[in-house]
């Protein structure tokens, strides 16, 4: 299969869906030139500046306008340049987009996609490196996708655009340049289906977004010591496919969850709570969590690396769960 990057996969999803449905429009800061991470490249030339438009720096206004355009029958995709800036747009996303359908008695729906790069690794520091997925998981009415490779990036983005509900797509910055196989032609990945990215029998490593790769690397390491780790990627966090996650744990009897957000009240908290409910009798060790350390993400590379989770952290947590002395 051809290999393309994560960014190219996302761009392709935009092109195809915009061709498929002329109600799909794109808004965001510097999206015409796709100036920051390149996802919207070529769209303005192809579809015109009516459908692909630069916006002022007004996160609240543009997400709110996305809600309004969706209420009027369009399918807007709003880019938030860094996930951290979504804090300015929580009201339209959570108080409006996620609730309007319900609150207005089902009279309309809000097919809005907000996509945004999250996470660290590029030395952008405390206000440009956060992973806030867990916030959105708690809110009924909005879906959350966190693809970890180019194929899922394309497939989940296409699903998101076709969904009649508000969807948040979180793209980890460190994934953008990663290459991987993506099927040609229409490729739509359904929401709510976790993927086993690698099979194994001794322990389940659940990775969120970019951290899937730390899990895979850890599985390699563990394999060298004769430990067979299964790596599972939930792919969407809301809906969350606890069934597949628990099934893996019922097989391996051990589980480590790896995310890049902060530990307390993170994505891992929910997965841990849900998995122990569904697989309690099968657990041979406490479910472990690996996450960013309890500090904002500093900009200096060594410090940043130290605060963010790494492969060794995952290996250590896995060994602890297996009772192997580290």
């Amino acid at each position, binding site marked *: 299969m051809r290999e393309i990057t994560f960014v190219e996969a996302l761009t392709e999803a935009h092109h195809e869906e915009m061709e498929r449905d*002329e*109600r799909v*429009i794109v808004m965001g800061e510097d999206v015409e030139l796709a100036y920051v991470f390149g996802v919207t490249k070529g769209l303005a030339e192809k579809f*015109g500046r*009516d*459908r692909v*438009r630069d*916006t*002022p720096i*007004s996160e*609240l*206004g*543009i*997400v*709110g*306008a*996305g*809600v*309004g*355009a*969706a*209420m*009027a*029958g*369009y399918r*807007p995709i709003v880019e938030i340049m860094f996930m951290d800036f979504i804090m300015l747009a929580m*009201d*339209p996303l959570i*108080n*409006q987009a996620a609730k*309007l*359908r*319900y*609150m*207005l*008695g*089902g*009279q*309309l*729906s809000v*097919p809005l996609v907000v996509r945004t790069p999250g996470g660290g690794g590029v030395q952008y520091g405390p206000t440009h490196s956060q992973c806030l997925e867990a916030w959105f998981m708690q809110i*009924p*009415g909005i*879906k959350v996708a966190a693809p970890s490779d180019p194929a899922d990036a394309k497939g989940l983005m296409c699903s998101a655009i076709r*969904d*009649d*509900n508000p969807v948040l797509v979180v793209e980890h910055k460190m994934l953008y340049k990663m290459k991987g196989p993506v099927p040609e032609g229409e490729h739509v990945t359904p929401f709510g289906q976790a993927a086993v990215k690698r099979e194994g029998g001794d322990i389940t490593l659940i990775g969120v977004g970019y951290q899937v790769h730390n899990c895979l690397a850890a599985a390699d390491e563990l394999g060298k010591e004769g430990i067979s780790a299964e790596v599972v990627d939930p792919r969407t966090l809301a809906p969350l496919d606890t069934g597949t996650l628990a099934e893996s744990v019922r097989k391996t009897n051990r589980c480590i969850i790896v995310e890049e957000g902060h530990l307390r009240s993170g994505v891992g908290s929910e997965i841990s709570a849900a998995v122990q409910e569904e697989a309690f009798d099968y657990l041979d060790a406490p479910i472990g969590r690996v996450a960013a350390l309890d500090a904002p993400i500093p900009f200096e590379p060594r410090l940043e690396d130290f605060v963010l989770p790494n492969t060794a952290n995952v290996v250590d947590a896995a060994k602890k769960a297996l009772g192997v002395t580290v």
Partner: protein
Amino acid sequence: MATRAKKRRSAKPKRLTKKDLNAMYRNMLRIRRFEEKTDEFFMAGRVKGAVHVSIGQEACSVGVCTALNDEDAILTTHRGHGHSIAKGTRMPEMMAELLGKSTGLCKARGGSMHIADISKGHYGAHSIVGANMPMATGMGLAYQLEGSGRVAVVFFGDGASNQGSFHESMNLCAIWKLPVIFFCENNHYAVSYHVERSTSVKDISVRAQGYNAPGVTVDGMDVVAVYEATAEAVRRAREGGGPSLIEAKTYRFFGHSRGDPQFGPYRTKEEVDEWRKRDPLTIAADMLKLTEAQKKAHLKAVDKELNGAIDFAEGSPEATLESALEDVYA
């Protein structure tokens, strides 16, 4: 839905006839009576939650909506019964919502603060102060893209004009020349906080200058003045001229919401009485030179409609518990 396909229709505001004015009087009375009833039901514990009546401000609702077509959109606020009725929202289903019935416009989920009737171009009351302005911007964007000539009107209060969303929305509408009308009902208070203390300008309409858009202040107790200012803004919007800001000076005769008396801690009886002299219904009745008999006939017709709505609402089944978990996702 071709992008900017159709040519924008230029709509010349119609001159109001006596018949129009009569209809406007009638609509204001419909609002007045509906809200008096709502308040009564609220006091009796039959309407629950947060209820804000707009009694005193009816000229704004009716003046604006008279200048709109059915396909035009409104977005309103926590104080939105008047706008709803003026835009044609079905009264029985609206009363059913207030009484929490299954037939309510929001299926008993949204209540007074979220009345909507999409079938009538009413895109919802929105209870987060200021949140409706970005939404209106997006609707205006959609209307511009579809080239339909439709306009979106967003109602908001003096208090709301200090939210950042006002600024971001006005700027977006101005740079993109979107067909959006920002209609500010300056009733002089945000809960207990007087506009002179909350707002750094005397006339909120002045703020339009910061966006290179027209801004006017009108007498919000005079339904014709409101109509005329709106009709002009609608014309401009339909012609691609972009947004307008209209400020209507008005007053709420009742308290802010539950428990808040008509006067007391933050305003005087004299002030309320003074404003009540300029009751928009009286002003319109005077313009029309309505006789007592004519007024009674209006009242009778309105009450008949209202009682029908109440009967419908009271006769409707309660919402089922399971329905509380529906419509979360499409």
